[in-house]
């Protein structure tokens, strides 16, 4: 049997080509993902290991959550604790660390690097006057206020030299600092394209914590003292409720674990897309093997006639699939290693620099790729193999045999209808279930997709018949194309389904993303009357000085900060949001279901509907509040408004909060200007804030563009990943057409003989391809829109302004894409059909 199978594979090389390609692409995707993620993960782990070389024990503060504690008072470590730790026997070196956000401006005034990984740390000289974490390449470490050091990567990128003045900002106001040193570092953020700024310890404490307080203490053990020993000794002197210790090894392990986790979630999502591509490939493989079996009916019947058992026949088909799968999987693995290497250098070239490391091709990767490729191929060939076994031996003697299985579709259609109905019902049910509807919706969507796939043969007739008026333009070629397309409904269905799956996902995602973007946009424009929103580039805390500065600006007619104030309200920790009660009405457009914004001062607060409902509050309710300084007060609800993503929670006047806040910080400041938004005004505001690299002054358009950019980026990545499924689907269409042309060569010969010219034949094949592709496209887009609608209903629960927007332009593009797929896929089969030797085609048995 093995030899028979091998001969068959070799005999049908050309016809198996598309199958091999489909499996190859899928496996390449899988192995590429595995190679890439394990390479990156390995590199990150190496680098993090190195980062903890100097830390044997780390002391970190404990967040107290006892009810008596002041809400919001950050836990820190005191200088005294540091000194005591340093005195522990076996502690060779102790480093106190303070860190936070620090945005550095380039020479052009713009922010350097990515705003979210711009870090500031303290330089903590040890006994030898050096901080071992940051070896200086040029100049001196900062020792006085007004001095800083920058990491070499950032300094080189911006062209800064020792002695230059650097503008930077920590929480709002611009600081001009003298660059005294440039250091090298392995810091992950700096490696990943961020910047790292060093201050002297006193300055850093003033900026990020409080004088004499640290975020973390790192201890290096003396020779002969183990990490565990040191940890125990330090534990003995530490106040348990204020600080805890962790060994360096555990820190490194934890970080490695968290890196592994984040890589694994990335790997999982990539593998999902690889899985989709492979799933689509199954249709092609099944189609190919079905055809090979149909073609060899006589041959297989002969085998049965001379004594081969059914199992042996099935096995011969499966061995064939195994051989094909092995070749494809090995080739796919090789391609995948290439893809993995390519992805790494691609990420490197887009600035997302990764730590260096060797390309990791683990045995697991190799095994997984091979198994996936072989199993998928054999699985897809299993049904055709069973069908082969059912060929009766007598078929070998009959001169005529029924080629395609003409088994009734009744069973299939019934099954399809039931599965589709169940899927659709589940999806519809899930739309009303709110947040808990995600899992049922996913399950329902999968069911519906499978159901529709089972139903495609049934759907193909009416849907393709609907195209008849258009096809009539093309005369006889169009008519024949339409009829050929529905001639083998199962094959057409499998081919179209392959395309359907990719387009369903693409359309669904596009609908949801587009609608969500519109919703957020609407929120920004509807609920916001302010001309500008001022915030930190990293959305971090903003100094209240900025709000004051803006309020005093002559161009500003109304402004309000949104100030964070943690508090305990009616026993629960809640964030109060301080606003300018006088101006808020001019800056926002809030819908009040009860009460109003009027007189939002002293003990008056307004609450969003959800929060009010949660606590059972209504207008006139009294809230017992413990402020962050521990003082108590009473607040009265003056109104309940409809909250949204931008504005929600408990709002009250900043003046009410002021006596209780020592270090206030704002999330953002909303500003209304005289004369409304204009470029000049925006520039003027930015200038008034000192052209601060850390602060973004955004008008509504900027806000929505920022959202749009994120959505577009995400969509493009998804499109790229789903493109693989579409490419595999194209292979499927090519495959099906090649089969059809091969099977119908006699008909094509006859048509040529009675006067259909080459162009007519080509057109016939192309139109058939177009019809099948568009059929898949229409199904996919239809399902995608439905899923988009259903998914949107879930989102609408948490996004009040959500409304489905059908991206007609995009849908048009997708349909055009399906058409292009059809035309491209037909290129080669159509040429082949047109070149068929007429006589050979007619004369063949």
């Amino acid at each position, binding site marked *: 049997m093995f030899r028979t199978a091998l001969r068959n594979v070799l005999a049908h090389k050309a016809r198996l080509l598309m199958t091999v390609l489909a499996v190859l692409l899928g496996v390449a995707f899988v192995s590429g993902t595995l190679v890439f993620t394990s390479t990156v993960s390995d590199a990150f782990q190496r680098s993090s290991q190195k980062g903890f070389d100097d830390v044997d024990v780390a002391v970190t503060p404990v967040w107290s959550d006892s009810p008596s504690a002041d809400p919001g008072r950050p836990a820190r470590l005191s200088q005294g604790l540091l000194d005591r730790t340093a005195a522990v026997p076996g502690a060779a070196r102790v480093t106190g660390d303070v860190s936070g956000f620090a945005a550095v401006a380039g020479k052009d005034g713009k922010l350097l690097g990515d705003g979210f990984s711009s870090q500031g740390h303290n330089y903590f000289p040890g006994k030898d006057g050096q901080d071992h974490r940051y070896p200086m390449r040029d100049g001196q470490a900062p020792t006085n206020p007004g001095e800083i050091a920058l990491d070499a990567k950032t300094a080189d990128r911006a062209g800064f030299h020792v002695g230059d003045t650097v503008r930077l900002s920590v929480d709002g106001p611009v600081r001009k600092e003298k660059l005294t040193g440039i250091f090298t570092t392995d810091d992950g953020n700096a490696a990943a394209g961020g910047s790292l700024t060093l201050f002297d310890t006193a300055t850093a404490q003033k900026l990020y914590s409080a004088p004499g307080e640290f975020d973390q203490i790192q201890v290096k053990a003396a020779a002969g003292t183990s990490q565990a020993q040191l940890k125990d000794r330090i534990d003995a002197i530490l106040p348990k409720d204020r600080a805890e210790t962790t060994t360096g090894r555990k820190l490194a392990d934890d970080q490695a674990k968290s890196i592994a986790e984040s890589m694994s979630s990335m790997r999982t999502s990539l593998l999902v897309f690889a899985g989709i591509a492979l799933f689509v490939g199954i249709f092609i493989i099944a189609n190919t093997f079905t055809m090979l079996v149909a073609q060899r009916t006589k041959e297989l019947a002969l085998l049965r006639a001379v004594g081969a058992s059914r199992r042996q026949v099935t096995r011969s088909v499966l061995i064939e699939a195994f051989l094909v799968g092995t070749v494809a999987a090995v080739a796919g693995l090789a391609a995948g290693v290439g893809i993995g290497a390519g992805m790494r250098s691609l990420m490197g070239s887009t600035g997302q620099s990764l730590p260096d490391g060797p390309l990791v091709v683990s045995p697991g990767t190799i095994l997984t790729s091979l198994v996936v490729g072989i199993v998928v191929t054999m699985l897809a060939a299993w049904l055709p193999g069973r069908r082969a076994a059912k060929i009766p031996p007598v078929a070998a003697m009959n001169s005529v045999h029924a080629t395609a299985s003409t088994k009734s579709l009744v069973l299939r259609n019934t099954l399809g209808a039931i599965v589709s109905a169940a899927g659709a019902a589940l999806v519809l049910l899930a739309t009303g279930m709110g947040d808990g509807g995600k899992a049922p919706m996913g399950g329902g969507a999968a069911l519906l997709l499978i159901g529709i796939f089972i139903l495609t043969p049934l759907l193909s007739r009416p849907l393709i018949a609907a195209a008849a008026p258009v096809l009539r333009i093309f005369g006889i070629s169009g008519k024949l194309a339409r009829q050929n397309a529905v*001639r083998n409904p199962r094959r057409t269905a499998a081919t179209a389904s392959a395309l359907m799956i990719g387009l369903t996902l693409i359309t669904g995602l596009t609908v949801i993303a587009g609608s969500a973007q519109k919703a957020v946009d609407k929120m920004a424009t509807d609920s916001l009357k302010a001309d500008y929103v001022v915030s930190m580039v990293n959305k971090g805390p903003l100094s209240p000085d900025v709000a004051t500065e803006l309020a005093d600006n002559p161009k500003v007619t109304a402004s309000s900060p949104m100030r964070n104030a943690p508090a305990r309200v009616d026993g629960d920790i809640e964030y109060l949001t301080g606003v300018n009660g006088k101006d808020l009405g001019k800056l926002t457009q809030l819908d009040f279901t009860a009460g109003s914004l009027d007189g939002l001062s002293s003990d008056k607060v307004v609450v969003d509907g959800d929060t009010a409902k949660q606590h059972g509050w209504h207008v006139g309710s009294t809230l017992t509040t413990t402020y962050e300084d521990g003082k108590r007060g009473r607040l009265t609800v003056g109104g309940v408004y409809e909250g949204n993503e931008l504005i929600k929670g408990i709002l009250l006047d900043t003046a009410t909060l002021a006596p209780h806040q020592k270090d206030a910080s704002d999330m953002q400041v909303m500003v209304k200007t005289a004369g409304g938004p204009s470029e000049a005004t925006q520039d003027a505001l930015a200038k008034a804030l000192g052209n601060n690299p850390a602060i973004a002054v955004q008008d509504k358009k900027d806000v929505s563009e920022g959202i749009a950019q994120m959505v577009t980026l995400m969509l493009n990545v998804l499109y790229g990943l789903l493109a693989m499924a579409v490419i595999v689907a194209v292979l499927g269409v090519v495959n099906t057409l090649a089969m059809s042309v091969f099977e119908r060569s006699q*008909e094509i010969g*006859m048509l040529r*003989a*009675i*006067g259909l010219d*080459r162009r007519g034949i080509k057109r016939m094949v192309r139109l058939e391809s177009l019809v099948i592709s568009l059929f898949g496209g229409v199904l996919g887009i239809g399902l995608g829109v439905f899923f988009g609608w259903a998914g949107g209903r879930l989102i609408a629960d948490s996004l009040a302004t959500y409304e489905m927007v059908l991206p007609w332009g995009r849908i048009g593009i997708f349909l055009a894409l399906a058409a292009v797929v059809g035309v491209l896929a037909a290129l080669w089969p159509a040429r082949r059909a047109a070149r068929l030797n007429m006589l050979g085609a*007619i004369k063949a048995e």
Partner: protein
Amino acid sequence: MTTTHSGVPTATRATAVAARATDLTKVYGQGETQVVALDGVNVEFRQAEFTAIMGPSGSGKSTLMHCMAGLDTISRGSARIGETELTGLKDKKLTQLRRDKIGFIFQAFNLLPTLSALENITLPMDIAGRKPDKQWLDRVVETVGLAGRLKHRPSELSGGQQQRVAVARALASRPEIIFADEPTGNLDSRSGAEVLGFLRNSVRELGQTVVMVTHDPVAASYADRVVFLADGRIVDDMSAPTADKVLERMLRFSGGSPQTPGFDAKGRTS
């Protein structure tokens, strides 16, 4: 004797020639594997005449038909349909010629399974984008006796009915000449006789020109004239054939060997 001109006096027949081969030569392959399928054939097919081409397997009868019908290229010489010279015609023109001036009936695979009988009959006109002549179409359909089966798909028709659809298709577009390649090869004797009868009637009653390749003397007996081919040359030309005369001739050319293809049960018993 490379050429054997017809001894039939042309004056008693329709004088116009529907197709003509002059010194027609067809060579397959090259060098040692070279095969001369047709070796300088000269033959005319007259209008409104039913001609059968006979000969043993490998005599070149099918090749002659393919070359005359513009299905195959010609190595040397010329082939004409009416006044149109086929040699040197580009594929496009040749296709148009086949579509507009020639009708075909093959041994099998004549019909498209997706089209109904009527659609199959009008296929050449649909390809040309012409409207079929309704009256003529009705007459053709009636002649071949398919009136009740026009909506059927080929798979719902018997082999004889399928071949009658093929005959109707060939007749429907009123081509200048119909080429039939073993049209009864796959049929039982009754269905075969029916189809041959229709072909003869189309010549007698509708004035159609038919050229039929066959190795069956009985089939050949339906023709007005039989042209005998052997080894790529025309070796005889017989008018008003009967099955016996044809069989006798066949036996003579093949040296009386009973293994000669062309024998069949009917031939021997008659």
